Structures are given as C-alpha cells and as structure tokens.
C-alpha cells in the first residue's frame, strides 16, 4: 500500500483524512505545516504527497515548488477554496492533480491510485525505446532524455508524454486526455491538461512558444508531432 504524506493545517481535516485513508490501508504520515512536511519527506519517503494549499507560514504552492526542485514525487493538491486562481497556481507549481475539499476518502483514494498507476500502454511488438528528434523515450524504464540528457518529468508530465507519443500525430481532445491520463471524468477541469502541457513543453521543447513535439490543434486538442 502506498505511503502517503499529508500536509494539512486543520487538525480535524488532518485527522479525518488520515483516519479515512489509513482505514483503506494506506500508510499515512500527517504534518501540520509545510516546514514539518518537508522535514518528514526525507525520513518518511512517501510515494505521494497530499498537500493542502492553505498553510500557515510556508504555503502549499511554495512547498510544491520546493519539492519539485529535486523530486518527481507525485503531488495532489487539496484545496478548500474553489478559487480557480489557486488551482492554476498550484498546477503551474508542479502539482499533478487536485482534489477539492470536502472529499470522501474513496474519492481521494481514486485520485491517488490514478496518479500512482504505472503507464502500461507499451503494446506488444513495440520497441521499448523510441526516438523522436532529440527525444528518446524509454517506455519500460520510464525515462526520457533530450539530446542525451535525462529529463526529470513529474508523473503527470511523463504519463502525458507517453500517452501522446504512443499514437504520434493522433489528436486527443482535452476531455479524452483527462479520462485517459488523469482518469478523471470526461467533464473534469481541462486546465489540468493545459497546465501539464505547459510544464511538459518547458522541459522538452526547444522553444515553448512554437512547440515541436506537443502541438496544439485549436478547437480540437493536442497531438504528438509530426516532427
């Protein structure tokens, strides 16, 4: 069972979520502040970070950025505010997904599972390693290098790239990507896709403003290539 680090300042929520997830078999460690959470990170070595955005002192977005500086730990934001602004900031800071509070443990668990699920769409007969221009994608080792230098991609970024490059030149709508990559419903927040594409492009594209690998088809969605 995955090890989950929960950073949440409100004791009731912290305790409730911890209780709910532990009941479902997760190994949960809870921290009340961002600083405490970051401190627990090295020692607890979680598989996933559940991060409340509104924290006293160091806030969730700052924690998120700091984690992303040296780790591709999957991050799911907990947001009590439906404020779209926070969500966008959190996604840009590198969060892979978000959950709006209040949420039932089953919903949280579903999101955790989706983020942690290994992409296994390398069909039989497909070469394990594919090369597209400067990009080399290892579907088995789940590594991507650009011009020989390994890229550190967050789980959602990697999954998106793998999904798009599995069918080069095929157009995926944002709704389809939400369903396939994030395992959300068709109608979920398409900004998840947009934010993730933006982050991915900043890492793989030579020029993020005129993308080569992940291309936009206005009104339809995204596709990989053609190069």
């Amino acid at each position: 069972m995955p090890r989950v680090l929960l950073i949440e300042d409100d004791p009731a929520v912290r305790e409730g979520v911890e209780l709910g997830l532990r009941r479902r078999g997760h190994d949960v460690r809870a921290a009340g502040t961002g600083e405490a959470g970051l401190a627990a990170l090295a020692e607890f070595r979680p598989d996933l970070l559940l991060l409340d955005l509104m924290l006293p002192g160091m806030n969730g977005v700052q924690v998120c950025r700091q984690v992303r500086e040296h780790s591709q730990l999957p991050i799911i934001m907990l947001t009590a505010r439906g404020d779209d602004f926070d969500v966008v900031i959190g996604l840009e800071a590198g969060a892979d997904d978000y959950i709006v509070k209040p949420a039932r443990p089953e919903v949280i668990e579903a999101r955790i599972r989706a983020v942690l699920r290994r992409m296994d769409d390398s069909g039989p007969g497909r070469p394990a390693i594919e090369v597209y221009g400067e990009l080399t994608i290892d579907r088995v080792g789940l590594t991507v290098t650009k011009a020989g230098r390994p890229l550190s991609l967050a789980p959602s970024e990697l999954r998106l790239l793998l999904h798009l490059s599995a069918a080069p030149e095929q157009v995926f709508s944002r709704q389809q990507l939400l369903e396939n990559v994030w395992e959300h419903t068709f109608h979920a927040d398409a900004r998840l896709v947009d934010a993730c594409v933006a982050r991915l492009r900043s890492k793989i594209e030579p020029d993020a403003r005129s993308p080569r690998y992940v291309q936009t088809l206005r009104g339809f969605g995204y596709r990989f290539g053609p190069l």
Partner: protein
Amino acid sequence: MIPLPRRGRNTEPAEGRRTGPEERSRVRAFGLRTRLLAAFLLVAAVSAGTTSALTYREARNALLKTAQDTAVSTFREQVQQTGFGLPVQEEGMEEVLRDLARKGKPRPWVVFAEYGSVRASSGENPVSTVITPGLRRAALANPYGSFERVVKDGVLYLTIAMPTVFRTGPYDTLPSGLVLYAVMRMTDEQINVDALLTAARDGALPGLAVALVPGLIAARSVLRPVRELRRAARSMGSGRLDTRIAVRGNDELADLADTFNESAAQLEDSVHELREAEARARRFASDVSHELRTPLAGMLAVTEVLDEDADHLDSDTARAVRLVSAETGKLAVLVEDLMEISRFDARAAELNADEVDVAETIRKTLQNRHWTEDDRVHAELPTGIRARLDPRRFDVVIANLVGNALRHGGAPVTVRLRTGERPTGTPVLITEVADRGPGIHPDSIPYIFDRFYKADAARTRSAGSGLGLAITQENVRLHGGTIRAGNLPEGGAVFTVEIPLHAEEATA
C-alpha cells in the same frame, strides 16, 4: 445583483428588448429645436409685422391726407375761378364743367353740378352714382368743402363736394345753392399704398430671415446643454454613475445641470451603499460556506468509518451514526452548491470553453451518473454537432436537469439535442430534457429557477440542495444562453436550454 423576483425572466431571450431612444427622437416632429425656432420666428414676425403695419398705417394716412387735401383745395381753386349766374342755367353748364374737369390735377376727375333741379356733369351721366346722399346732405347743410372715399364695384373713388357761395357784400357771402362735385378714382393712391405694402413686406421678410440666425444660435445654445443632459442621463442609465455635466453659465439650464449632478451624486452614493451592503451579504454567504467546508472536510473523511462500523454497534447507536453520516453527505452537497452560487453572484465564475462534440459530452454525463444502464433515460443525440462549451458546466446543466426530471418527474426521461436559430440569426444549440411525470404546476413555472424554491410545499428537503435549477440557470446564462421550463401537451415537464453554438463570442 439584487435578488429580485424573477417572474418570467427566464422565458425571454436576452436581446431584442430595448427600443433605441434614437428612433424616438427622430420621429419627434415638434422637437425642442423646432419649437424654439418657431417661437423666435413668431416673435420676429409679430414685431416685424407690427412695426410694418404701424409704419404703413402712418405713411398711408399721410399719403392719403396729402392726396385728398390737394384734391379738395385744387378743386376749390378751380371752382373759384368760374362764375355762374343765379339761377344757374342748365345750358352751357356742361361746357363749364368739362373745362373744370380738364383742369383736374393731378389727375382728371369727373365734375358734377347740382342746383335746384339742375343736374349736369362733365361726363356722360348728369348724375353720379358714386356720390352718397350723406355727402349731398353735408354739402347742402354746411357751406364747407367735404370729401368721402367710396368703394363702388371694387374701385375706390374719392368724391369731393364743394358748395359754392357768392359775395353779397365786401365782407359777406351767401350759399348759392349750387354744389359742385368731383369724383376721381384713387388708383394712383392705391398703387402707392400697394407699393408701401410691398415695401413693408420686403422689409419684414428679410427681418424674419435675419431673426432666424440668432434664433438658430439661441436654439443651439439651449439645445446643447439639453443634449448633454440626455447623453449624461443615458450614460447614467447604462451604469456609469460617476457621470457629471459641466455647469456653464448661470441660467435655468445651469441650474438643471446642477440639480442633475446633485441627483447623480446622491444616486451614486445610494447605489454605492446598496452595492456595499450587497457585497457584504454576498461575502458573508461565501465566507460562511468557506468556513463550513473545513469542518465538513474532516467529517466527510470519516463517514466511511462510521458507515462501516455501524454494523457492529447496537441498533440505536447504529441509526444515529448512519443519520450523521448521511446528513454530512447532504450538507457537503449543499455547501458545495452554495459555494457555486456565491461564485456566480461574485461574478467569479469563469467559462472555460472548449470545442466539444456535444452528443459525446451528453453521453458521458449520462454514463458517469449510470443513467444509461437501464431504460430510465433515453437520449436522442444526433452526431456531428460541435459547440464551444465549458464541458464541466454543461455537464452540471445536463446532470441537474436529468436528475431533477428523475426526482420530480417520472421515467422515462428524454434528452433531445438539435440545433436551431434565434430570431436574430444566431445559431443555437437546443437541448430538451423531458419527463413523463405530472408536469410543473403553471403557478410554479415563473419561480421554478428561484433559489430554494419548492414547487411542492410538502416536499421534503431531501430531494436536493434546492439550488440545482438556480445553478443550472446561472451556468446556461454564463454560456450566453437561455433556459425555459414548461409542460408538454401530452403531459410531463420539459426544460429547454438554448446556448449559442459559439459561447465565447456570445458572452464577449
């Protein structure tokens, strides 16, 4: 927005309601400008006319007096140069009279003589038909020359009666009984008078024309502030409450502008206050929802624990625990809906439009709710309709309508999709959700989209948050669309959503 009663609001399209005030002003034939000009012209006309008329009358009287006096004294002089034996003899009289007539100055006249029964003239008839009995009486009664203007057959005549006297001594005269009359046409005087009239008219008309120029200028100076006022009023009406007018001068229009500015300031203040109060109320609702969310988040996280463990508790505790768990869930939904409504009220709701296949979007909505697994919901979704929608909000719209139909109407619920056009030509996406239930009571239709409106007073709140249809309507509006509630002739309620196919353009 102030939550006012919304009778019939959702049944009418947003556009095409305002009739332009411009059209009205153009139709106005007797506008302020016309009236001002008319007033100026009237004053100018009256003064010019009065002046002309008075001048003319004086001039005419002077002219006439001169002409008449000249005629009378000339006639007298002529007559005085003649001699008559008494009694006056008829023979030779005409000769004398013709002689007199020839000497007529400045124009010829016809001379008549009357003495006893003697009647003679320089013309064809011995007796004039123009001379009045009044003139005769005056001439015979008093030894004075006299005249009278007579119009006969449309011609103006000057008739002069000249009684004659003769000397009875060095200092005395005696009326001879002979009266001489001169009759002359006044045509020349008439012409003079006509000329005078023409002159007066020619003088008056340029005067009027000249009056038109200051009239126009004055009208402009009056109309400009009025026009400014109108523009300002319209600007206020369109919500720019800080509109003020520049006050110029010290006249009534300046007072009006002052009053307008004061009223505008007061209005701005009251509206500002009202908005503040409204914003406070809205913030409060929003804050309350926010504050409720955190404890709810904790509670909701443990409801599962309660539900699972309830089985091991004694029955009363188990019921209590299950009740708490169920109500916590409902409370979470209610708070979620309140949050959503607050966002709409704060205009914080954003439209994240994307071009989608509408049929697929609706199908996913139904699938996600597991409504297509049995025959409760029937969908007629033609393929190939693409529209710019916010998929999440459209999902809420469809889900709320279908959920509502399933709860309050009756299965099977039909979802129909088609495209159409508004009267303005905007292509729209039309989605109909119909059920086979008892329909909506006609009295309830105007309020069906109101918050917490319960069509059936006896209905328990368990049916939902009471905000579902209100949120649905707000979501449709955010797309620039309309939603209508009604009943089908064959029974059952139908909700019709019309959304422009290109939502972003419609709301832009």
